[in-house]
């Protein structure tokens, strides 16, 4: 296994009422040690589900990992027992959630929330844990005197720093950051991203950054995977994706950005809406919205159209599209 993290043909479903939500449909991803992979896509594309599958924190009821393998440092996480996962979570792999306002316990001081993580894993002594938690606070730019304060006494940016301090407390080798700065203002976002980058480089952490902000990807990631309807429609290095986007959806995303349309009156929006995940189109999931779609893209009623499984257009740059557009 050359890659630190390798996901193979992951399929995840949710059951909602009597419908099956096809959240993740055969996703394969890989991530090297110390590298950062950006997962880009719209709400409901399955980005967070992928991250939660890695952490094995999908809801017990209603969610199901149907098939696939998730190899982390040579071990298949999907074969671990819940007890084994308990040790992995927080120490080997940690996750930062989107909303710092709800990710913290309002009744516990921020310092205690960080020590709690440490005590659950490698630190046995309460005093030592408090000491280390103070260090963590300082590392994310919060004075250690604020150990005893409660989440409501912090601003949004500060709370997100606390969440990051918690996630990094046990030096995880893999960090899953789910829209870590979406809830923050731009100047604070710049500070937090800068801090994440510095810590990542210092600790040589591998990271998956989930975001819908292509600017954040451009500044933070080494490689990018674009997710649409639970599938990777395009993946490659950051340069591949930003300089030579090949999938019509990726191109559409770039066209939708106001910052890319300086001097142009209308944005090139993608028509229509993302598909209903309980009832995905056959063939390529994007064809109903795709300006280049032909009959070949629609596949057969039996499911997939052969050839829409992705092809490598330049080394390492994969596109799930039949066309050369």
């Amino acid at each position: 296994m050359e890659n630190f993290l390798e996901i193979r043909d992951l399929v995840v479903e949710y059951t909602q009422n009597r419908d099956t939500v096809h959240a993740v449909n055969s996703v394969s991803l890989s991530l090297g040690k110390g590298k950062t992979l950006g997962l880009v896509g719209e709400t409901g594309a399955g980005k967070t589900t992928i991250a939660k599958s890695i952490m094995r924190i999908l809801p017990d009821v209603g969610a199901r990992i149907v098939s696939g393998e998730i190899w982390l440092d040579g071990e298949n996480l999907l074969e671990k027992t819940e007890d084994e996962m308990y040790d992995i979570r927080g120490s080997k792999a940690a996750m930062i959630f989107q909303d710092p306002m709800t990710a913290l316990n309002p009744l516990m001081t921020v310092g205690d929330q960080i020590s709690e993580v440490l005590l659950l894993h490698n630190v046995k002594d309460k005093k030592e844990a408090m000491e280390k938690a103070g260090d963590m606070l300082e590392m994310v730019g919060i004075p250690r005197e604020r150990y005893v304060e409660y989440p409501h006494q912090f601003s949004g940016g500060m709370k997100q720093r606390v969440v990051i301090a918690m996630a990094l407390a046990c030096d995880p080798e893999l960090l899953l950051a789910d829209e870590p700065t979406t809830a923050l203002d731009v100047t604070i976002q710049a500070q937090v991203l800068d801090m994440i980058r510095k810590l990542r480089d210092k600790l040589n952490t591998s990271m998956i950054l989930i975001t819908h902000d292509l600017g954040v990807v451009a500044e933070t990631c080494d490689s990018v995977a674009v997710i649409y309807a639970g599938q990777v429609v395009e993946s490659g290095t950051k340069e591949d994706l930003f300089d030579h986007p090949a999938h019509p959806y990726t191109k559409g995303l770039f066209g939708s950005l106001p910052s890319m349309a300086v001097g142009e009156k209308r944005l090139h929006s993608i028509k229509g809406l993302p598909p209903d995940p309980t009832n995905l189109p056959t063939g390529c999931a994007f064809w109903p919205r795709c300006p280049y779609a032909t009959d070949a893209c629609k596949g057969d009623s039996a499911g997939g159209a052969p050839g829409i499984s992705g092809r490598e257009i330049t080394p390492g740059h994969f596109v799930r599209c039949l066309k050369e557009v």
Partner: protein
Amino acid sequence: MADNTLLEIKHLKKYFRVPAGQNHAVDDVSFSIQRGETLGVVGESGCGKSTLGRTIIRLLEATDGQVLLNGQDITHVSGHKLREAREKLQIVFQDPYSSLNPRLRIESTIMEPLQHSGRFKNKAEMREEANRLMELVGIDERLRQSYPHELDGGRRQRVGIARALALNPDFIVCDEPVSALDVSIQAQVLNLLMDLQEKMGMAYMFVTHDLSVVRHISNNILVMYLGQAVEKAPTEELFEKSLHPYTKALLSAIPSVDIHRPMKRIELKGEITSPINPKPGCRFAARCPYASPQCEAPQTLEEVLPGHFVQCCRCKEINSL
């Protein structure tokens, strides 16, 4: 020029009383909006941009100052006069999930302002008008009888827009109308707002923290910091040649999608200070790389270049003007 002015805001203040004192949410802000213009208002959360919009359209009562609509002071009008003013001043809210009544069908939501206007004789006329509005904003007729929860965010926001358009307003406050939406849907709604403005000619006040969105849609931009207007300029001028140190930092903080030409970032120290009982003097001074003792004096917004207003006593010095 003068008769083209739709709204004039003069020394508008809105303070909220909080346990710790007075929260100066909007503190002495003056500007004007022309007919058919789009003014972008940017700033970080808590800087008072939404409060400013809401105070202008009388959803909140101003603490001090004036709002003139077509030359008439509407700051303290009531009854019939207030109703009249409100027909002209509308708002589209940020969160399309909480700004629609979950128990009202889409059609009824859009018909509600029509009922209050008294312009329509009967239900059938109103229904017809509601259908016209739905078509205008691109909502399928089949969704007429749907409830908000059956719609996605983009469609809900279209309903919010149709409701705001119902009485043919002159001015719409768009309070972060696309920040809850995905990029591809965001682009659709932005295009819709621009098309509608072209057709109907109303002015927008576009409140957002997303600078690339305001750049795209606005004619002029007002930058706010802790309740005060720190810079106002035509859009391109602001992006090309911002003069206030805060604006410079704000613009440099936008993550750039250009991977080969990363933006040189001006790092700000610290967090936004509290707007509760602020000290006189420049409110940005605590984070400003150029702060000096003279910044402790009260600052005023001055026209430094034609049409370009800045509130910074060291502005000329910093920018060597």
